[in-house]
């Protein structure tokens, strides 16, 4: 739906070529596009401003690497800065306290505190082999305590009973006394959702914090939150000494700008991501993943992994050997390549993962790539082995025969032969070590972002 940042940046930057460094004009033009992109990703405006200032300083005068266009170079700076801002020094959960270590959960209504409490309890139990007790101090929302009881039962940790009508501080103290008696390692205190403008409720959670003196105070925030994320995070940060953040509902398709806002405003690390409704769907935070998501980059890493899995290495190796020995690239090899492409799965699924792929998907809807590949293979199948090896043999009469055999027109056979010639030329350069040169010459022609970055 949104225009990819890569596309935007290349539109404003890549018209200017042949410069060694990013100029001030370029940086300013790019900054405007970046601002829009970050706002569309729901990064809070004050945070956007601050972030852009940092990027500008870094981008100005940055050398444009040989293999990159100015747009890509700028994007690289943004990506690095974003990852750094989000990551900082991501700390693990701090449990270095005389047991029981207390974790206090805080956040707005519906941000996912109770679900996260359950997930965290399971994570501590399974990964850290901790003995966990959970308690709910939410005496307001109907069935909130019941929800935690069921969640605790599902993940197999102890639930300390509480009920509506009790004081939250009293509940917490009773739970703490119980956890001590049980020699529990960790006590997680779930609290009621509250809006930051509700003074009484904010005071209540500050009192809870004072009474418990937790080693971790985690702010739970919905990754779909908009501009309000900054304000809310600040208000919670002012009321409570937060120690970390849990970002929830990351399995949705929001761009997750809230992550940057919250990180910047609270200065506290994001420690976990909630990535699904099931109790085991909790992940340690990866700054680069969220960074790529905010600027709308696809999951390139995932694509590379998938490709590596599906390409037949032996065949690819054989082809490379053959090319090295300077034996020609013939139609049989071309067919092989096409088959490999087919193996990679549907074009759609590849495009989904490519940066900007969503837009491209729209554009190529009319062209059925898979049909093209099938047709190409069919034409080559209609050739004799001799013809495949020596394509120069193919003259008018043979073309007619091949076309009839594959059920296509002669033009399509011609088209295939031309396509093959182009590929052959590329392969020659490829084998001659001209890879880098060729990539550079392609850099301007291919959609930006498609180029492998090194």
């Amino acid at each position, binding site marked *: *739906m949104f225009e990819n940042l890569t596309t935007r940046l290349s539109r404003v930057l890549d018209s200017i070529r042949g410069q060694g460094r990013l100029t001030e004009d370029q940086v300013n033009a790019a900054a405007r596009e970046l601002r*829009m992109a970050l*706002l*569309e*990703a*729901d990064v*809070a*405006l004050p945070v956007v401003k601050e972030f852009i200032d940092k990027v500008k300083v870094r981008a100005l005068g940055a050398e444009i690497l040989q293999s990159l266009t100015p747009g890509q170079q700028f994007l690289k700076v943004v990506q690095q800065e974003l990852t750094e801002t989000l990551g900082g020094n991501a700390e693990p959960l701090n449990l270095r306290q005389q047991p029981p270590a207390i974790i206090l959960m805080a956040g*707005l*209504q*519906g*941000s*996912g505190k*109770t*679900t996260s409490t359950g997930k965290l309890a399971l994570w501590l139990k399974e990964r850290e082999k901790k003995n966990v007790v959970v308690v709910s101090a939410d005496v*307001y*929302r*109907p*069935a*909130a305590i*019941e*929800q*935690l*009881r*069921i*969640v605790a039962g*599902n993940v197999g940790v102890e639930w300390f009973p509480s009920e509506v009508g009790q004081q939250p501080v009293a509940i917490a103290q009773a739970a703490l006394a119980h956890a001590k008696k049980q020699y529990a390692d960790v006590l997680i205190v779930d609290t009621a959702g509250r*809006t*930051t*403008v509700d003074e009484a409720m904010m005071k209540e959670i500050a009192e809870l914090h004072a009474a418990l003196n937790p080693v971790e105070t985690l702010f739970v925030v*919905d990754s*779909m*939150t*908009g*501009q*309000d*994320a900054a*304000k*809310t995070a600040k*208000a919670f940060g002012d009321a409570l000494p937060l120690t970390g953040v849990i970002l929830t*509902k990351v*399995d*949705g*398709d*929001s*761009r997750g*700008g*809230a992550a940057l806002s919250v990180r910047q405003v609270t200065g506290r690390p994001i420690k976990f991501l909630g990535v699904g*409704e099931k109790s085991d769907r909790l992940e340690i935070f990866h700054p680069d993943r969220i960074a790529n998501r905010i600027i709308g980059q696809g999951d390139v890493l995932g694509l590379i992994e998938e490709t590596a899995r599906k390409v037949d290495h032996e065949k690819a190796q054989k082809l490379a050997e053959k090319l090295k020995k300077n034996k020609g690239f013939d139609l049989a090899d071309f067919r092989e390549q096409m088959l490999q492409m087919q193996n990679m799965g549907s074009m759609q699924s590849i495009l989904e993962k490519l940066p900007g792929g969503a837009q491209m998907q729209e554009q190529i809807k009319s062209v059925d790539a898979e049909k093209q590949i099938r047709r190409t293979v069919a034409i080559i199948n209609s050739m004799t082995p001799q013809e495949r090896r020596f394509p120069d043999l193919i003259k008018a009469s043979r073309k007619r025969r091949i076309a009839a055999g594959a059920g296509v027109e002669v033009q399509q056979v011609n088209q295939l032969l031309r396509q093959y010639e182009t590929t052959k030329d590329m392969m020659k350069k490829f084998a001659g070590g001209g890879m880098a040169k060729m990539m550079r010459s392609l850099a301007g022609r291919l959609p930006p972002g498609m180029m492998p970055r090194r």
Partner: protein
Amino acid sequence: MANDSAIGRFRARLNKGDSWLTRDIGSFFKADVLSPDALEELETRLLLADAGVEATQWLVERLQADINLGRIKNEKQLRASLKKALVELLAPIAKPLQIPPFIKPYILFVAGVNGVGKTTTIGKLALRLKREGKSVMLAAGDTFRAAAVQQLETWAQRVDVPILAQGEGADSASVIYDAVQSAKSRGVDVVIADTAGRLHTQSHLMEELRKIKRVLQKHDPYAPHEVLLVVDATTGGNALTQAIQFHEAIGLTGLAITKLDGTAKGGILLAIARRMALPVRFVGLGEAAEDLEPFDAEAYAEALIGE
């Protein structure tokens, strides 16, 4: 006038955090001349309210046109022009929910992503409809989340309406089907069906919603008569994506926006209004059972702009 109190409530709740849009609008003027930064400042504030880039640009262009025509020379005119633009944007989507007496039971289907306040909205809605003299029945269709059924049961007790539930893990479609069945035999006016929260990216869960709808259509080919999407006011641009995706899956007929009593201003309404012709039925302004108001474009715009 009832309208006055609505405006008052809106204003009190919406501006509790801070009055954002026009707090110092007077300072934009220096002796009858609008300062050049004023539009940019307004743009910033609209963006800060999650109005989104598209709706913001549209509003700012409106103002710019008025300025170019020389219509804005003082604070009052700026306010008036801004309000006019906001109302123009919002009025087409401010359509209250009307339940015709000849459809019985009227089936109201509530959907949304996790944690937006579906169950709370249903509780409030049940009270509101009951006060209008309708008999209401709730269907506990959220059979997935822990204690969701109990939560709805508590609401049913609170506002004193019957509820049909089968407990956790039951088939959501069958719970709702049974509720409609029993509403039919008891002559209940309105059935409000809760569903489990689901992210619009999870296609199997969206498929489940479609199934529920298909099953309901066995009772009445026109059911559900209202498909209400609940959206959290603190959500950013993703709320628009949610609305579009849910609409594609089950065909929405209305929107309820919750948690407007926090610091979020729900500017996403503007973004949704700009992109979709989806009526906004209700706004949630607090945790109490009475804190649900029908959406009124005029009142909302007025609350944003102030005196």
